[in-house]
């Protein structure tokens, strides 16, 4: 196994001297906090933003105070329906027997203003109805014969934070593990061919399987460093920055699951990208091969976004990447591990790494490898 260590050390030394790779890792570590800071500021701004309601007619007594308290600014306009298209966020016509609302659903500001208006009107209606009943000596509790009392089993704010993490973390993990080692993987395969060092390397008496393992280990290491840098900076930012009304933190259990999955994913991706690099004639062709693969890899993370309550049976955990996303989501949201799911996921990702390694080895021992170069 000595050749493995020799190749590992040399590859790592070359990677650490490659300014492109170091810059990519540094940027990855900076990019996530930057995105989070922007999200936090936009969220805060959206929550406190005042929206304008263009109205005509007479405002019911007291409603104007309620609307102002909800950051809805009233502005009299001649034609609320026309004004709602561009001039104001909402148009409202107050009539004696009803209120007409005009808004453009394609405008986000109109959607938010609409939600606020509906809430305020609901509260106003309830208050008016209660007052009317009291005037007639009737208990307003009559309006809600079966009162609902909510008992959240966990903090709703914390749950919102976990839901955010359960999407964002797998996405960052997969992206960084894949892209962090990509340049190194292509350099270690297509790059050898392009630099004309491949023949000299294959001429050494070291077994090719060990040479490949050394390369896989180096690429896996740099993928992990890249992922840890990005996720570490993300978690640090989340712990300092109030997002969704709370400081989001990762539980120790979820952190442990994440590290384990990162290792498995890095080993699989390293083998896969090395296989692609071995197929490529040069670095640029390797990059072209990898682009579709990147979109395939981030697709499972998107499933969580589009189907938040996706709870598949154990067979789904055989699907590489999707399984990692699901296991990590469960660990974050439920703060528990479904051991059978983790077992199947581990076996699946290890099998993927082995198959890719074997495929790369086959490619590495084919005569075509030299003839094509």
């Amino acid at each position: 196994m000595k050749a493995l260590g020799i190749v590992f050390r040399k590859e790592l030394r070359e990677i650490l001297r490659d300014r492109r790779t170091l810059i990519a890792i540094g940027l990855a570590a900076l990019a996530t906090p930057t995105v989070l800071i922007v999200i936090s500021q936009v969220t805060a701004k959206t929550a406190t933003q005042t929206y304008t309601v263009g109205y005509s007619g007479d405002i019911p007594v007291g409603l104007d105070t309620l609307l102002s308290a909800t950051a809805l600014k009233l502005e009299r306009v001649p034609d609320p329906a026309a004004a709602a298209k561009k001039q104001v966020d909402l148009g409202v016509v107050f009539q004696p027997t009803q209120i007409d609302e005009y808004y453009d659903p394609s405008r986000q500001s109109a959607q938010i203003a609409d939600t606020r208006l509906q809430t305020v009107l609901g509260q106003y209606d309830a208050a008016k109805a209660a007052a009317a009943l009291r005037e007639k000596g009737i208990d307003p509790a009559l309006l809600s014969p079966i009162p609902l009392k909510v008992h959240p089993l966990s903090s709703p704010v914390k749950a919102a934070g976990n839901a955010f993490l359960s999407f964002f973390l797998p996405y960052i993990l997969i992206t960084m593990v894949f892209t962090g080692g990509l340049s190194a993987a292509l350099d270690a395969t297509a790059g050898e061919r392009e630099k004309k060092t491949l023949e000299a390397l294959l001429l050494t008496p070291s077994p090719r399987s060990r040479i490949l393992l050394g390369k896989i280990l180096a690429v896996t290491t740099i993928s992990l460093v890249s992922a840890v840098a990005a996720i570490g900076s993300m978690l640090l930012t989340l712990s300092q920055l109030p997002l969704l009304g709370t400081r989001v933190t990762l539980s120790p259990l979820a952190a442990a699951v994440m590290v384990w999955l990162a290792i498995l994913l890095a080993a699989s991706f390293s083998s896969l990208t090395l296989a692609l690099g071995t197929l490529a004639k040069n670095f640029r062709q390797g990059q072209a091969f990898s682009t579709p693969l990147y979109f395939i890899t981030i697709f499972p993370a998107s499933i969580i976004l589009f189907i938040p309550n996706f709870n598949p049976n154990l067979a789904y955990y055989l699907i590489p990447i999707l399984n990692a996303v699901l296991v990590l989501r469960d660990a974050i949201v439920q703060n528990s591990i479904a051991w059978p799911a983790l077992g199947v996921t581990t076996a699946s990702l290890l099998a993927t790494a082995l198959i890719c390694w074997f495929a790369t080895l086959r490619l590495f021992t084919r005569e075509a490898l030299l003839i094509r170069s």
Partner: protein
Amino acid sequence: MSPAAVTVDRLEKTLGKNRVLRGISFEADSGEIFGLLGPNGAGKTTTLRIICTLLAPDAGSVAVLGFDTRKAPEEIRLRVGVVTAEIGVYARLSARENIAYFAELSGVLDGELNRRVDAVIDRLDMGSFANQRAESLSSGQKQKVAIARAIVHDPEILMFDEPTSNLDVLASREIRDFMVESRERGKCVIFSTHVLHDAERLCDRVTILHQGTVVASGTTADVRGSHRDLEDAFLELVE
């Protein structure tokens, strides 16, 4: 009489649809410079690649110091050093690190490593740039790195495949001097080239390939025969 260092026997090889070698045979001995000559596409590089076990023969056999290329490829790679026209080196490693990497992969033990690397740097007069990154070296200096990595494990057989084709006059001369020096050390030097003047100056024996077959073989003087030089002899053989 000791067995030949390299024995090629009725070797055949097809790459894709191209029948590159059509049953060639020759022997190369220790302590000689053996020329493998022929125009581009004659099959010289393919022959060398089979000898050093990068490619497998379709038919025929190759023995290197008694080891069959099919049965003992790793034994052969331990005993062979190859220098090609492609002077690819790891740009982000220094010249010394490049040499040490190949020395380690070729089985040079830790205790021996620095001594071997230093020795080869001295021998090739590389001291002035040994610690520079390869990306900053000239073509001639890179070629020296390529030679150093091929000989650092002290192989008994050295193969040079068009080693001077990318080099200037001075660097080419250094390579030729190195081949002569290696012969004097008792190595078997196989020199593949299409530059027949170079071969005539250096080689003790030559084999000329043309379209995958041997068209002439023997001492340089025998092959030249009554012709003015090897080039004239070659032209008569292939016309």
